[in-house]
């Protein structure tokens, strides 16, 4: 009898443990904490995880606690696939591959497994067309949208878009799929506004760029330079620009060229340089203050305290907030229970993050509003521009809307081509 009681208790404990586990939401955190891109990876992942810690301190998402698992991809596609395969069966509601190349490595697998792949500020641009790519979400803003905001920003700096006519723009880009991705949209913009542009590919990793910058400064002599770099390529480019005497306040970087890690190593050479961004910098936001107080105050922060408020860290907060709000929305389908990939796919196509919601999250000014749909997996497409003053980034523009007249037809054409190649049926989103 005693044995029966023990057995019954064991069953009860096991069942209770099962319920406890069921009340946790698994979140895979794939990032790169080691390898050449670890400065960016550790920063974004740090902000993301700190945000989830803050949510848990406040009782989780609708009472469901977040439980995350980290997997280091080192920014390598093979490791990304390994991480994905390891984590997909554990209840992954979505995957952030954390890199364009890594996205290409897993998005078709995830699609088959019905797990949404979220690529905030990177990834495959034509996946903006949700009719063709139901499980891929280049949300907030994609590369083509960003490219149009850069040209608009340059237009603002020179006194109007009509002043772009006859100008020369050098496109210094990483010689990779990521680096080349904006070339078609730049071509379309050049036709529309009448400027001339020339591509200057930089071989990875871009440790020495004398040849490129000598061509730019002595031969091509552009009015502006677009810097589409990654990692060590960015500070090296700014130093070489200084060396050949090209003014840094005529260089505009993509957001993967616009973190502290991209300018601090360049020292004085970076002063005056502009970069795009899709979120705010610094710590002057209620949620960041809460993180400093509740997470770092308790000694539970992911990173050294001085990295809080950096560009990469704040980008991680946006990723964290986006993840949490997608899960919250998906819980509408599960009666506030943990969610799966298909729930999140539905949620993402119905997700609207309003200014009021952002204020409630304590992220006003840091996170932009957005509204995604079945046909539009981007849901935003805006960018702000910042300028490095030698010690910090200062926001120097309002939100600049992308030029969807150029971007959307190109997105649809590219997505349709993909659908044709793969023999896919295009969804009707009406």
């Amino acid at each position, binding site marked *: 009898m005693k044995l029966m009681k023990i057995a019954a208790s064991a069953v009860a404990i096991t069942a209770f443990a099962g319920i406890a586990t069921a009340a946790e939401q698994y979140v895979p955190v794939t990032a790169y904490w080691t390898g050449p891109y670890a*400065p960016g990876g550790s920063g974004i992942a740090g902000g993301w995880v700190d945000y989830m810690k803050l949510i848990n301190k406040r009782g989780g998402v609708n009472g469901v606690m977040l439980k995350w698992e980290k997997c280091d991809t080192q920014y390598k596609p093979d490791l990304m696939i390994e991480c994905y395969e390891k984590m997909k069966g554990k209840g992954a509601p979505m995957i952030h591959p954390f890199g364009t190349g890594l996205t290409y490595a897993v998005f078709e697998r995830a699609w088959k497994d019905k797990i949404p792949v979220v690529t905030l500020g990177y990834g495959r641009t034509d996946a903006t067309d949700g009719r063709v790519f139901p499980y891929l979400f280049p949300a907030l803003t994609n590369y083509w949208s960003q490219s149009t905001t850069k040209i608009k920003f340059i237009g603002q700096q020179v006194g109007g878009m009509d002043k772009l006519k006859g100008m020369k723009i050098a496109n210094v880009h990483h*010689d990779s799929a990521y680096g080349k991705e904006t070339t078609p949209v730049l071509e379309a913009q050049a036709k529309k506004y009448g400027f001339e542009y020339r591509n200057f590919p930089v071989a990875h990793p871009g440790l020495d760029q*004398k*040849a490129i910058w000598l*061509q730019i400064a002595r031969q091509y002599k552009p009015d502006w330079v677009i810097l589409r770099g990654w990692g060590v390529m960015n*500070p090296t480019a700014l*130093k070489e620009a200084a*060396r050949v005497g090209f003014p840094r306040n005529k260089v505009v970087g993509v957001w993967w060229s616009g973190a502290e*890690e991209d300018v601090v*190593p360049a020292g004085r050479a970076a002063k005056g340089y502009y970069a795009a961004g899709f979120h705010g910098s610094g710590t002057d936001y209620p949620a960041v203050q809460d993180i400093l107080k509740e997470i770092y105050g308790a000694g539970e922060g992911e990173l050294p305290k001085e990295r809080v408020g950096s560009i990469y860290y704040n980008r991680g907060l946006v990723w964290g907030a986006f993840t949490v709000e997608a899960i919250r929305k998906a819980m509408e389908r599960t009666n506030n229970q943990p969610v799966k990939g298909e729930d999140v796919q539905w949620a993402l196509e119905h997700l609207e993050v309003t200014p009021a919601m952002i204020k409630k999250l304590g992220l006003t000014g840091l996170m932009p509003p957005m509204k995604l749909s079945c046909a539009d997996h981007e849901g935003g497409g805006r960018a702000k521009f910042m300028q490095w003053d030698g010690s910090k980034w200062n926001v120097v523009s309002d939100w600049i809307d992308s030029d969807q007249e150029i971007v959307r037809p190109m997105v649809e054409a590219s997505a349709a081509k993909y659908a044709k190649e793969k023999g896919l049926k295009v969804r009707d989103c009406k």
Partner: protein
Amino acid sequence: MLEFAFQEPMFALEVIIGGLLSGIMYSLVALGFVLIFKASGIFNFAQGALVLFAALTFVKMLEFGVNFWLAIVITLAIMMVLALSIERVVLRPLVNQPLIILFMATIGLNFLIEGLAQGIWGAEVHSLDLGIPEEPLEGLMDAVGISITYFELASAGIAAAMVFGLSIFFNKTRVGRALRAVADDHQAAMSVGIPLQHIWALTWAAAGIVALVAGMLWGAKIGVQFSLALLALKALPVLILGGFDSVAGAIVGGLIIGALEKFSEVFIGPYVGGAIENWFPYVFATVFLLFRPQGLFGQKIIERV
């Protein structure tokens, strides 16, 4: 396509000078490889990781508030400890093994040191200011329109001093001769009383010093970050061209490779889509290898059966 070089001679000259100055920086990294190869016959795959480890250690010392010169001394001491550990744990058990085994061991070491560097000192990017101005020499710029910075001149001077010092060390000192004997034949060197373990520890410590100098200069140029470990890729064609066991070859090879990659990028690159400066020197070095396998200044080994 090369007619542009003749149409714009001053521009072509600036490109070549820029290349020579880049080449000197590659030579600094190549010297570390040469040192270990010359003294032990091992191609040290981990030299790039040593550059990263040394630079990160040095910059962290500075960030801890340690005086500049004391930071150099502490970093050198840490590099010595690392060298002794490598000799004791990795190399000593492999004495008399084929060189390919030792090479494989350095591949493992490379990843170990890279991981150690990031594990101990973190993954952040650090700026490093050595106090050498990076502005171009104004007089030269005004007179001929060619941009050369004080930093580049200083780097060239430091590289020259290192070559001079290492040449004296290898050719004029007893220890240097012992190093060369070990490289020729481990067993023969041991049989005449040369203490192999001490020699290897000394060699790796010296490579650590070279790595620190390269790491400081490259760290000041591009920031102290993981990418410093990738510098090894820039040194390889230099070594193939100059010869793996020649100090002078590392310098001459560096100058040629530097000038060649810049010239090819500017005057050939635009015709083939650009971004050729990484692979073009390898093509050149490979072709060169077919005609002179030992490199420009490398020792030609003749083995009699």
